[in-house]
């Protein structure tokens, strides 16, 4: 399978604090990779480094054979290829639902309004929010906002979708509707990189699970291996802690 993104020797420090140390991993086309780990392990920072919302301190990020950390590389163009879904939704407050999904297409990808609207409606239907096109973000519940945010990212027709703890800011009863959408997307063959605390989602939906601890990838493998036969002591510890909480 074709490799979408390769991360090599990636490091990131905030001042003297090293958040990521020598990270190496890659995502293949059509693959769903979950990144798990306790808070502060560097999962979100890794995801944010991949679309350059944080500037890595060292290492390389290879996309389509090019190191996108090169100064000459066009960051904005690269970012249109990655769809980002944030923990806090970050819908554009000044636009209604439809425009949230259109503004990037029209302004960045220079698509026509008609084309943009057609795609927006298509993806809003996918997330089940096509009835709400005239609503402003302030009118929506958290789960609805997150589904619109997913549609907004899909409208750019990205190669890879990045999810940064997409359900962590949601009320418990709304987590399900967002996970359902994400599961459907995964089944449709979308390449997805998901930072999550939802162990069930990681276990059932992902092709591969990456466990991070203290800024390094401690263990990675298929869900069956990570959840049932972890080789590392700290993976076992983490799973014991989180799975106990979930019961």
């Amino acid at each position, binding site marked *: 399978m074709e490799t979408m993104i390769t991360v090599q020797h990636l490091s990131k420090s905030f001042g003297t604090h090293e958040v990521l140390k020598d990270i190496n991993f890659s995502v293949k086309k059509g693959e769903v990779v979950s990144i798990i780990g306790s808070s502060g392990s560097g999962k979100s920072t890794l995801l944010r480094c991949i*679309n350059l*919302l944080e500037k890595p301190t060292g290492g390389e990020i290879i996309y389509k054979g090019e190191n996108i950390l090169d100064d000459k590389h066009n960051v*904005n*163009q*690269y*970012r*249109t290829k*990655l*769809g*980002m879904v*944030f923990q*806090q*939704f*970050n*819908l*554009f*407050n*000044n*636009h*209604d639902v439809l425009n949230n999904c259109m*503004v*990037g297409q029209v*302004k*960045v*990808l220079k698509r026509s309004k008609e084309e943009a609207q057609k795609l927006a409606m298509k993806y809003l239907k996918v997330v089940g929010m*096509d*009835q*709400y*096109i*005239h*609503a*402003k973000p302030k*009118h929506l519940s958290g789960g609805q906002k997150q589904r619109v*945010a997913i549609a*907004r*990212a899909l409208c*750019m027709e990205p190669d890879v979708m990045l999810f940064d703890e997409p359900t962590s800011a949601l009320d418990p009863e709304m987590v399900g509707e967002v996970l359902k959408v994400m599961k459907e997307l995964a089944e449709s063959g979308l390449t997805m990189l998901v930072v999550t605390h939802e162990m069930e989602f990681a276990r059932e939906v992902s092709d591969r699970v990456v466990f991070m601890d203290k800024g390094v990838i401690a263990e990675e493998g298929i869900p069956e291996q990570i959840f049932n036969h972890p080789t590392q002591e700290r993976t076992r510890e983490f799973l014991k802690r989180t799975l106990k909480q979930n019961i």
Partner: protein
Amino acid sequence: MSFDWIIKIFTENWPMFIRGAGITLLIALIGTIIGAMIGLIIGVIRTIPIPEKGMKRALLKFINAILSIYIEIFRGTPMIVQAMVIYYGMAIAFGIDMDRLLAAFFIVSINTGAYMSEIVRGGILSIDKGQFEAAHAIGMNHLQTMTNVVLPQVLRNILPATGNEFVINIKDTSVLNVISVSELFFATKSIAGNNFKYFESFFIASVIYLIMTFTVTRILRYLERKLEGPENYNLAGNQMQVDTPKIPSNH
């Protein structure tokens, strides 16, 4: 009786009062609008993220330094002094005899611009970081992020402060009488100079100022509410349910 005098002075001089008020309002309006535009442009420039190295960094640093100096100078000196320095300075340095009204527009605009750029900067800083990140994440550059996402929100947030500037400008244009701009204060001074009824004449002026500022405040309140947007929304494909049923006219 001074009340009779007030009536008499107004009925005799009302065209002059009204023209003065009109010019005051015009200067304040144009000054506030141009000042707000200056503020928006400077606000956008001052929030451009500075790259770590290269020519662009040096250029941005230089422009930011110039803008800081502009803001400090015009916020740190009284407008009455700026008016004198600019108007007479132009005459001495370049031999330019500025049109007084144009000079008034210029002075009020750049003075307001200095204040507005700080208001805009504050407005931009108050927007949630997530809005910038979401815009960047779909590939928008700084200018696209600003015009499509941030500034529309900033404009709504800074409207009260902008209205405040407008009201201040209506009052502060009175200092332009030092360069003989025929605004309301200057007009009133001329009227009082003819009839020697200073209290009565300026009482009329104060009522006119108050009417202007009060009206402007009300209009801006209304605008703020308008910009809040509707409280409700209709579900798409569901509008038929809220339509008023039509009664056939051909019975």
